[in-house]
């Protein structure tokens, strides 16, 4: 299956792109996607422990199961306000 990954702020600096697409095994979880991304983009490694994730614009935990066509967002610690 294929998902779209959105990278924001420091996560975008680490991957070098704002959007990328990722092939995953069916049943893959957010944590699996994150692990694959770290292998491809080692610069992400320091950010991963503090990253939050969103699917379809809602926060999800790392164990959330992904589906074909999902949009996963990598959210570094927020600093709005």
């Amino acid at each position, binding site marked *: 299956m294929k998902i779209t990954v959105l990278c924001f702020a420091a996560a975008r*600096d680490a991957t070098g792109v704002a959007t990328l697409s990722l092939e995953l095994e069916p049943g893959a979880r957010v944590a699996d996607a994150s692990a694959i991304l770290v292998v491809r983009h080692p610069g992400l490694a320091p950010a991963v422990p503090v990253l939050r994730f*969103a699917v379809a*614009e809602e926060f999800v935990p790392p164990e959330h199961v992904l589906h074909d066509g999902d949009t996963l*967002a990598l959210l*570094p610690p927020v600093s709005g306000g």
Partner: protein
Amino acid sequence: MDAIQPIETEVAEICTAPIDVAALQARVAHAGAGAVLTFVGTVRDHKRGRRVLRIHYEAYESMARRVLHRIAGEVRREWPECRIALVHRIGLLEVGEASIAIVVASPHRVAGFAALRAAIEAVKRDLPVWKREFFEDGAVWVQEGS
């Protein structure tokens, strides 16, 4: 103001133009609200002794709108007597410019202060917005709440 605007119970927006705080107050203030409380967050000129020149705010815009609406809804559920407006500005802001404004219109001050505090803390915790601070010698993503 040219025309009389309808009073709104909830305003939740991401914008790029300067925030008009008085206009925002007018959108939720009403005759039954004896307390109109406003929080304005601005770009500070220093960070740990270093001079900040400007800040670039980036958002996951569609999600940020959703989160602002969620926060407004949560505040309204806990304090149904309060009306609330939340606006966050994104883009490049200079020192002194407002990045966020929250207005709560409440019949009484106690509920108003509580609702306002809850709203800004929820924004700090969950709103997908990131600031990149520009100093005289470079720029960094802010990685902690501040």
